[in-house]
């Protein structure tokens, strides 16, 4: 898991890094490329699920489609997260690029993804799986195991936090979109 990690080596103020969008006049394109890059660099995401008033969080290896319409992860079916999301498909995922450094406070980008989970099957599942494995090739055995499910989250909105307290909301209009 070493390649492409977003570890900062320099803390030079004013040095532009791809993760800094923050205060710049927010444009949709700018925010989308920020998200695309974050999702490419980060392997893991915290998934939040709920059922009967109980909340549950777990770490999942995730992938996102290029158009940002869908987020994917794989899970064994006998897990609490899978049980919860089948009962209650409204889920959230949190992705960030912190490096556990004090200076992270203003430098970190944190994204809450809100959407609806579903479990595709047939050719649809196969296409999604190929996409997922492109980012996580080592997960093939795990993801293709008979008891594993590939979960597709159709994204409704992204809450993007930069520079500690700047929060922008990127909403996706409409339903099914091209992948």
């Amino acid at each position, binding site marked *: 898991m070493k390649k492409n990690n977003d570890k900062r080596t320099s803390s030079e103020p004013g040095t532009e890094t791809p993760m800094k969008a*923050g205060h*710049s006049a927010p444009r949709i394109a700018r925010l989308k490329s920020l998200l695309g890059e974050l999702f490419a660099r980060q392997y893991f995401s915290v998934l939040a699920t709920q059922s009967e008033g109980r909340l549950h969080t777990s770490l999942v290896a995730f992938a996102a489609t290029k158009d940002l319409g869908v987020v994917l992860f794989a899970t064994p079916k006998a897990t609490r997260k899978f049980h919860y999301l089948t009962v209650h498909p409204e889920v959230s995922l949190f992705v960030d690029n912190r490096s556990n450094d004090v200076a992270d406070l203003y430098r970190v980008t944190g994204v809450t993804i809100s959407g609806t989970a579903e479990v595709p099957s047939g050719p649809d599942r196969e296409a999604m799986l190929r996409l997922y494995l492109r980012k996580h090739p080592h997960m093939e055995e795990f993801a293709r195991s008979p008891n594993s499910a590939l979960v597709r989250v159709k994204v409704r909105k992204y809450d993007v936090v930069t520079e500690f307290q700047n929060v922008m909301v990127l909403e996706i209009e409409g339903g099914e979109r091209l992948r």
Partner: protein
Amino acid sequence: MRLILSFREIEEREANLVGGKAVALSRLSKAGIDVPAGVCVTVKAYERFVERTGLGERLSLILDRKSFTELRWEEIWDVSLRIRNLFLNTPLPPDVKAALREGLEQFSGVPAVVRSSSPSEDAAGTSFAGLHESYVNVRGLDSLLDHILLVWASLWSDRALLYRKELGLDVARSAMAVIVQELAAGEKSGVAFSVSPHDPANAAVEAVYGLNQGLVDGTVEPDMWLLERASGKIVDFRAARRSEAIRSVAGGTALAELPESAKKTPPLGVGELARVFETVMKVEALFGGPQDMEWTFKGETLYVLQARPITARARGDGMSEGGEKPWERSDRRSWYLSLTRSLESLKRLRRRIEEELIPGMDADAQTLSGVDVNAMADRALADEIDRRRLIHGKWVDRYWADLIPFAHGARLFGQFYNDTVTPKDPFEFTALLGSEGLEGVERNRQLSEMAALVRNSGELREHLGEKMRSRRFEDIDPAIAARVDGFLESFGDTAGALSWGKGELLALILRLAEAKSARGGAGSRNLEKKTNAFFDRFTGEERERARDLLELGRASYRMRDNDNLHLARVEAQLGKSVEAGKKRLESRGLEAALLDSEQVAQVLRDPSNVPLVKPVPTVAAEPVELQDNPHLVPEKVVTSEGGFRLRARQLTGQPAGQGLAAGKARVILGRADLLEFRPGEILVCDAIDPAMTFIVPLASGVVERRGGMLIHGAIIAREYGLPCVTGVQSATSLIKTGDSLVVDGYLGIVTLEGAGE
């Protein structure tokens, strides 16, 4: 590791430990040239201080708060003030303190100089000299330690932050060394260039009476000699108008009148001049390149204070280079550097502003208002527009050249306050600046008095309502008529490029009367008490200095607000002539609304040649050196695109006025929005123009795109005790009129209560 090295102990290769300035002094001293006795506090002391106290992490938090490409110059000053205050409020660890006291013992009984010696300044090349602080005439060990903290803090001075990329400024890597020397309070001082900047065959010597800060910051005009490098023969001499000199006084330095005999005699005799010349040539030979050397004569001894390779030395006026206006250059940073001025130079500037510039602006506005532009023939009107453009342009230039630099007075006071009081809040000093004499506040007071009359009399309200409906403004009830006329007389031309009409004023008064009672300004209730408590900290000469600085700070703070109103009066006269021209063109069926003043004049002269509307350039997140161009408008934000919709949930800026407010946003994009303003709304704007502050008493909070703690919006919001957040990027695009906002003026956060949460 020893934290202090004497000049003798410093090795040439140790520039990273002691900085280039200390290495140069050490080399001069070893070569037998007289330099004032001194030592260097190495970067190790800075590093130990920053590491032990956890200051590094706190520095990162201040510096990372907002991306540097988005900071305005004024915000950079705010950042550096916060950092300066952080250093002053952080005690030295006991072992560092003990080591410094021991190593500096020799200076306990003599006046000293504390100077920066930054390794990064040298790494970046010598053109960045003067970015860090130096202090002259520091007395006593405790004061020495305080000033060492200030020099350390100046690693992050506003000037250094402007050049952070070139300097490679980095919390984890950058450090500062400090030179402590005995003060050589010379009778005459100056600068010598081994090669004249204008003629490679000659050397140049400049000399003043007293200390040479006056020369370096442009306050005191020097005598100047050109000498042939080969022979030392004098080839040219230019005498100065000698009148004053900088001398050391308790707590620093001050400008003093010269005795008559000195006014008539050049500071240097022929023999002394020859010695300065010989020394600078010797220094050039020592360092192997043309040198710029600061020197002083104390008695018979010629001391070299500093030597460095020749660069373009920044002068106090910022006007030295070429004919281009420095604030119109593509890289404005050298102009920003020139805005940091001394007390003496600002006092002089104040006289010029109060005695010449403001009366001049008013006189021009007065004269122009007596000219009836509507009665002019086309060609005469075109000429009149051009004439007014020139007059207005002249005052805009004065505004940049003199009035903006004068704003530094409030900062200078702020620094002095923080140095002497060391408050927790670096902006506590603004409470002492007061609001007396702010024309905007006076205007608001008159408005609220008229509103109170209307509020308390149903009859009057009825009467004015009727006037509004019939749009007939004659025969206003005498209970208020004189006040209305008086108001229009004094402030009619200050509401922006266009003037107030009576109808608009009455509409505003009625609106103000709807509010239960508009806020009053904080006034002078506690001001006197606070002022006296501040003065009580000082005695003797120091007290005079405190008084001088506060007086200057107040004048600067007032002027910061008032100058715009005076300029607005001139601008209104230009506007009137342009409006008359446009009306005329439109009555003939020409499209004139979007033409600028120059184009209106052109079409009046030649109606067959209607020019294209000029495109309005936009401003993105432009770096500071390109900012504040008055011709730029904020970048448009795209909020809907390809199935995605973007909205803001929370925006951050600087906490410029404490408090918490919740209410509906009123986004000010034009004059019409101002007149729509309802009591209790939150004012959201690009930049509060002093001409629009009349609605502030109606607002419950202020959000401003332009950042800074001393900008109009922040000043006026604090005056009315309103929560205020400045420096909110794209505020007027991301926030819409009617959005529910929470303004957190403690943390500098604006939250939008969004739909769909």
